[in-house]
Each structure stands twice: as C-alpha cells, then as structure tokens.
C-alpha cells in the first residue's frame, strides 16, 4: 500500500517538503492550497505590483513540473481535520484520507481591532488575493491619492515602496522612536529612517493608529492617530505583523498556542501530523531564536527536515546561526548572528559601528564585551559572504580578526569599493588598537568553504 502524504499549503515550506519527499520516496503526495493553483514566491508579489516582474515569473517551477514529478495539486480550502479518522474535510472536494499530514498554512496579517478596520480600502499584504485587491484599490495616484501604511516592519516598508512606485503619496505610521528600532540598533534604524524620508515618504515615528473613518461612499476616507491627528486617505495598509493562519484547526485536537505547537522533530501532539513554516510554534526554540519565525528560509529548512523524517529517519530541526536579509528601498541589509537593538541587548553585547559619511553604507558588529568574540553583524549597502561569516561565528573569531579579514567577507560586485581601511581606521582609533588589514585571500575563502562541505 502506497502511503499518502497530504500537505496543506503550497508556500515555500509545503512545497519544499513535497519536493524532498518526492526525491526520497514514491509516496503519493497531494498539496492543497486555497490561495493559488501553483507555488509562487510570496516575496516577489511586491515586484509584480511595481512592474518589475510578471506574475508568471514569480513561479519558481514551470506548470508542467508538478505532473512530471507526480505531485498532485488541489486548489481547495481545508475546513476541518478529522485526526482520529485521518481525514481532511474540504470545501469543494470529497474528504481525503492521509497517512502523513503536514500543515504549512503560513501566516495572515494581524489586525488589532481598530474601529473601521473592516471597511473597504483597509487591507494587509500577504497573499496573492491581497495583491489583487491592492491592484483594484490602489492602481494609480488618481484612484488612490494618499495611502497610510500602519506598522514599521519589513512588510510595511515594502508596502510603502510599492505604493510610492506608482506615485501614490504615502504616510507611514511607526509606533517606535525610529523605524524598526525594536530589531535594529538605533544608529542602523536612523539610517533607514532617513533613507525612507529621502524617497518622499511621510514617515511618522512615535505615531500609531487609533481609528479608521468611513467616507460617504462607504470606503475609507481618513484615519485618526493616537496622537490625535486626522489624515485623509484612500487606502490603509496594515502591516503590524503577521500571525499563524490556523483558525481551521479549532476542533481538530491539534494543540496550538499562537501557532501549532511542535517539538524539535516538527511533530504536533498527534501522530503523523507535522507542522512547518510560519504556522509552527517551537516548544523549545533553538538558541536565541523565537518560537515562531516567519522567515522564508526557516520555512524552507523545516520542509527539508520534515521530508527527511517522513521518508527515512526522524530528524530534528536544528537551524544554525541566525541570518536574514531585506531591502529597504535602495538599501540592502544582511544580518548574521545576533545584533540586538539597544532595548533588547543583553549586557555582554557590545557594538562597533561604522557608517559612510555620505553614502547609505554601514556596518555594525556585535561582540562580546569580555572576550571580544563575534556575536553577529549587520551590513547595510554592503553584501557579505554568508558561508564565511557563518564559519567565523562557529569558530568564535574575535572582532579584530573579523575586521582584519574583512576583505574576504565582502560579497559586493567586482570593482566595488571596499571600505575596509576606513572601517579599520575608525576601529583602531576608537578602541585604541592597531589591527592591520589583511589582503583578500581566495584560498582562505575557498578553503574554508570547501572544508565545510
């Protein structure tokens, strides 16, 4: 009897699981999604709206791929999971029986019960449907003269950039003192904030949403902030974070908290039912990681791991050093290890900061005050080599070593300016050191990379 694995959700987590199960076994695989017939890259939705890419290009696999690899796709909504019968109840299709079930339903935007939040013209940005809605509600500056974006996170700044690309005036409400300063050290946050302003975005820090008002046409007409200001607008984009999309699990017997509770093997409390990606909540988070990580790559890694568990041997989810990246308008950002904001910084964590005098280029390195061991780094407007920095973190290199060998870590296009000398100058003078710049060494870079494999 061939086993049947059903995956709910065709995002990066679910699809990675499906692909890896297919690589390792001949099981029957069904992927169910209510959102879209085929896997697409959620992270690229902004580029569709901005006209950088057609929607088809957001699909990482051509449409024939699924049939060829015998991965069955079903566009439907799961209403209920009957775990004791190992069955899924669907909206439009007869019930489906499974042997293994992987829940990978991702997130949905969080709304915080603002008056007027259900009005037409108020929306989040997460799904394909949200994108289609935005295209209707804010196609151009004629239909949408001003938009208010609420919440200063990664989706917020994306939304602001998207609307700005269509010449729509944007007011961007951020609760904190600086944009994203709950995550970034103040200096980094200020750099981004300044850049957002330079694009003509009306960024308002220390400002939050109180109420959304209805106009005579029944749509959004204005908002009031907690600070008492009234802003006339045609669209309110809510980007105050996301939460696991798990409402349909209420009566399933699957234990949930904010997300679906899973152990290190990504198993839920019910046998043969797994949860991965944004909707999973780790009961024992790894290191300083959060229990729910709504990040692209963790979803992908969980997909790889769960496939391993289902097809061969039980494998724990063991994410390595934290890393992430983003782009704030024109500023690329990469981070490795932990660089905490002042608010969350543990006592032992010290920061070294370098910033280019006129360009949007900066580097912040977090290190242990005592041992000077590298804890993490943030780079802005400067690309850095993941494998090498990951290795430095594992080897526990100190900050002087890191800066001396900084040329090895750079991942900018060839001929780009390396600011290593400037960085070292500041480092040496502010900490009274005499670290010498080491020449970039291909053998050091590549040896360290190949040894790792």
């Amino acid at each position: 009897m061939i086993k049947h694995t059903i995956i709910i959700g065709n995002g990066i987590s679910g699809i990675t699981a499906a692909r890896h199960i297919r690589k390792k076994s001949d099981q029957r695989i069904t992927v169910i999604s209510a959102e879209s017939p085929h896997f697409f890259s959620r992270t690229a939705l902004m580029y569709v709206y901005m006209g950088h890419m057609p929607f088809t290009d957001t699909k990482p696999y051509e449409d024939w791929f699924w049939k060829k690899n015998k991965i069955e796709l079903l566009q439907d909504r799961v209403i209920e999971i009957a775990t004791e019968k190992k069955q899924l109840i669907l909206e439009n299709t007869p019930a489906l029986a499974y042997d293994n079930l992987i829940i990978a339903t991702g997130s949905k935007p969080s709304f915080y019960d603002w008056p007027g939040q259900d009005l037409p013209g108020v929306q989040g940005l997460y799904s394909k449907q949200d994108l289609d809605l935005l295209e209707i509600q804010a196609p151009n500056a004629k239909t949408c003269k001003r938009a208010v974006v609420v919440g200063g996170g990664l989706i917020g700044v994306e939304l602001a950039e998207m609307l700005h690309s269509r010449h729509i005036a944007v007011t961007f409400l951020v609760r904190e003192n600086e944009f994203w300063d709950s995550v970034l050290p103040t200096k980094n946050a200020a750099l981004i904030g300044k850049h957002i302003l330079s694009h003509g975005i009306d960024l308002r820090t220390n400002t939050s949403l109180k109420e959304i008002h209805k106009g005579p046409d029944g749509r959004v007409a204005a908002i009031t902030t907690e600070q008492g200001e009234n802003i006339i607008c045609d669209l309110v984009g809510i980007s105050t974070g996301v939460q696991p999309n798990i409402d349909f699990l209420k009566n399933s017997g699957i234990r949930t908290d904010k997300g679906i509770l899973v152990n290190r093997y990504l198993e839920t409390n019910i046998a043969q039912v797994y949860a991965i990606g944004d909707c999973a909540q780790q009961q024992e988070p790894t290191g300083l990681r959060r229990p729910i990580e709504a990040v692209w790559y963790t979803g992908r890694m969980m997909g790889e791991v769960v496939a391993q568990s289902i097809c061969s041997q039980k494998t724990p989810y063991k994410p390595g050093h934290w890393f992430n990246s983003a782009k704030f308008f024109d500023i690329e950002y990469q981070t490795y290890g932990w660089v905490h904001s002042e608010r969350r910084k543990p006592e032992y964590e010290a920061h070294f900061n370098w910033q280019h005098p006129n360009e949007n280029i900066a580097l912040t390195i977090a290190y242990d005050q005592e041992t000077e061991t590298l804890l993490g780094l943030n780079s802005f407007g400067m690309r850095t080599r993941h494998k090498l920095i990951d290795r430095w973190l594992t080897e526990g290199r100190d900050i002087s070593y890191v800066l001396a060998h900084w040329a090895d870590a750079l991942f900018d296009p060839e001929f780009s300016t390396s600011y290593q000398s400037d960085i070292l100058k500041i480092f040496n003078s502010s900490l009274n050191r005499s670290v010498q710049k080491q020449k970039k060494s291909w053998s050091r870079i590549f040896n360290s990379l190949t040894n790792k494999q």
Partner: protein
Amino acid sequence: MKKIQQIGVFLFLIGLCTFTALVFLGDYTVNKENLNKLIQDKNISSEAFESLATKQLVGVHFKKISSLEHSLTALVLQSNQSHREAAKEKGLSKEARKTEYQKIIYSDSKDLAFELGKTSAVGPIKEHLSLFWWLSFGLGILGALLFIVPQVITLGPKGIKNNGIYHQNTTNRGFIAWGVFAYLVSFYLLLYFAPHYSIQWTLILDPISYILNGGPASRWFVYGFMYCVVMVVMAVRMYIKYRHNKYQLLRTTSVLFFQIVFAFLIPEIMTRLQLPATDFKNAFPLDYDFFFSWNLKTLINSGGLGVFILVWGILLTLVVVPVMVYFFGKRWYCSWVCGCGGLAETLGDPYRQHSSKSLFSWRVERWLVHGVLVFAVLMTAATLFSFFTGNSSLLGIRTQSIQNSYSFLIGAVFAGVIGTGFYPIFGNRVWCRFGCPLAAYLGFVQRFKSRFRISVNGGQCISCGNCSTYCEMGIDVRAYAQKGENIVRSSCVGCGICAAVCPRGVLKLEQGPEAGRINPTEILLGNDVSLIDLLNQK
C-alpha cells in the same frame, strides 16, 4: 524634467522621420563620367551594356532610386541576352565564345544602382549634407539624450529602478515595441538586401567618411557609424541606470571602447592607409569569413601586416579566447569586448527581460547554437579544402554555395535581422543565445574548464525570481540560487545584472579555484542537519 523629456521624444521622432524619409528622397541624374566609373569599378566588359546605358541613362533624370534600379535591371538583362546569343552562334572560335561569356554581368542590379546612384545624386539633400545630417542624426541624438539625461533625477536615488517595466507599452511588448521590432527588421532587410535605398544615408555621412578613411561612405560605413552612435547614446542610459554599480559602469565603458576603436576607427584608418582593414577583436567563427579565400589572399598579399593579422586571427581563436575564458569566463569577450554583445548591452538593455526562461527554450537553444557552430566549422573546412587543393567543391557540394548560404542565413538573417530586430520581443541576446558559433565555442570552455562562476550566497535566496527575469540569456538563475548551487552555465555571458537586481545580495560573479565550482548541495546552509548522518544514509 517631464517637459524636457517630452521635448526630447519629439526631437528624436523628427530625427527618426527625417532619417526614414531619406530612404525615399533624392534625385539622380546620370552622366557619362559616372557611368564610365561604374563600368570600370564593376569590371564590366560588355560594350552592349555600355552603349545601351549611354543611350538610355545618360542625361536622364530619375526621381526615384527604384526607377534607376529598374532601368539597370532591364539593361543588364538585355545586354546579357545579347552576349548569350552571340556565344551560341555557330562557327565561333572557342576563344571568341569565351570572350562573349565573360561579358555577361553577374553583379546585382541593386549594387549597380547603389554605385551609380551614389555618384549621380543631385538635389537639395546633396547640396545641404550637413543640414540633413543635423535633421536626422543630430536631432535623433539630441532628442534621445534629452530624454535620457533627466533620468538622473527622475529615477530617484541611485539603485535598481525597474519600476513599471511590465506596465509600459515600450518594454512590455506593447504596440510601440512591435513598432520598434518592425522598424529594426525593415532597417536590416534594407541594409542587407536593398542597398540602393541607403544612398542618401551614405551621402550625409560622406564628410565624416572622407575624414576617417579618405573615401565616400559605403552602407557598411553607415551601419558602423550608427552602431557607434546608438551605443554611445544608450551607454549614457546605462551609466545613469547603474550608477551605483562599478562593474556595470566599467563593462559599459569597455564595450564602448572596443566598438568605437577596434570595430570602427582602426579599420577605417587602416583603409585610409591602404592597409587591409581588420577588426582585431573579432574572432573566428563569429568572424565567419576570416578563412574565405578572398580574405586569405588579401592578407597574404599585404606583406608583414597581413601575415600578422592572419597569425593573430588564428591565435585569437585558438589560444587567446580559450585561455581568457579559463581565467575570467566568457564574459571577458561577450559582455566586455564583443560588438554584438555591446549593442545588446546598450540598445538591448531595456528588453533583456523578454528572453524565455522555459526548459523548452533551453532545449531549442542547445540544438540551434551548437548546430550553427557545426555549420560554421564544416563551412570553414570546405573553404580551406578548396583553398589548398584548388578544388571548388567538396563531396559534390560547391564551397561557394555553402559560403553563400551561411552568409545569407547566419550572417545576415540570423545575426542581423533576427538578432537585433527581435530585441523588443524576444530579448536582447537572441543571436548570442541561439546563433553565435563563437558563444557556443566559448560556452564549452566556460562550462568544462574555467575558474568563473556565479557564487550563490549560502541560504539567503528568497526565490523572488528577479535574477531569472532579468537574465538576458534566458538562464533560470533562481533555479540554482534557491538550491544554494553556484551557477555554472555555458551560455552565461557574465553581464552581472542578475547580481545587480538581487534584492538580498545572493549572487556574485567571481573566479576562484576549479574545485568546488560546481557544488550541488543536499541541504542548504543554515540548517545544521548532521552531514555525517546524511552521508551514512547513502
């Protein structure tokens, strides 16, 4: 700013209209002197043609070049007919018969019309060459620059600015794109197959041509000059668009330099010095007629320099090109030096997103591009065989006809009409991807023996697909990047745009040790699955 740009578009369109109108304008009055020059230049020995032409053409005023061409076609037919009949007459000696046959004119009447028309042109354009230069080239260049330069401000702060590419008619295969497609295709068809229509263009470029090579402009001078002008103007656009990226700035400067100096100025100046004109960077088999006997003979008869060119040409293909590809990848040629690449990277840049990324296209690509390489090699083998043995055919096929079909199918139709004409619809590297035999050859080296790769930055890829969309060679870059696998593909020309458009800093073009260059990864970086366990399972 908008106003300035609108004025720019307006001026550009006037320039374009004038340039187009030149095809149909111009008057021609043939005199005896010009006719004699034609007869001499084209080695016409038919006295029948001469007397007929003197009677029917000399002193006649033609309002259109097509009428002159029609008359010439008729004259050639008539005189050839008379010689054929004369040759068939009985009682003629072998010698006399041969002489009659030699009087037959094989020259294309379009070429004859070009030669005769060029010297016989009269009228306002001929009398006001610089005025018409300014009305066509001048306004075109000025208008284009007025449209492009304000982008320094309109594009906003430096960075990747691809906003609206898929919303705009011009860059999303709208009717304007189809219009550009039709215009480019017509331009190439005219240039290759109806040269007599280009007479007025050559006239207005004569002054520049005299300065450079000491003679009047040919249609190829027009083409070379336009090529440089278009590249310079569109390079300004590249400089603005990618002003944050030094790799792009240097690369653009490099292709510009090689086009203007190596492909254009040096050959023109060599002509002036009565040396064999050659483009030193143009490598066989892209330079497919390098081994044609006329070229070999010219080179061998040109003394030391000719021999140097011959040796350099062979070394370029056999040693310089592959060694450089080993160290730097084929990008050093395709997107830093090559003229075809240069046009694709400047004029073609707005259309790069239209290359198809489907697996089907990749299959077609491999068959076609390698097919052309085989064709080029076989043709050259036959050519060399004929050159050394004196046999005009190989295995019953005439070498000349192989050469002719290659020149027509690959040299003109594929590289020109399709290669550039199809930019707005199929992307800017149609020729380089599907047709260039040199690219196919370099591709082998790059794929199997090179230090070049596009490194993928660990696990940072978010599968957004910008890299694939903007790959002009139709490589599905994302397919590799999202697996953490370096991109090592024979077709990659190393333009570096995938790395430039990546929002997460995932891609970097670089060269390093060959070991570990191709790195299929089972589990991506960031996931500390025990690799020992993973290996033990296998």
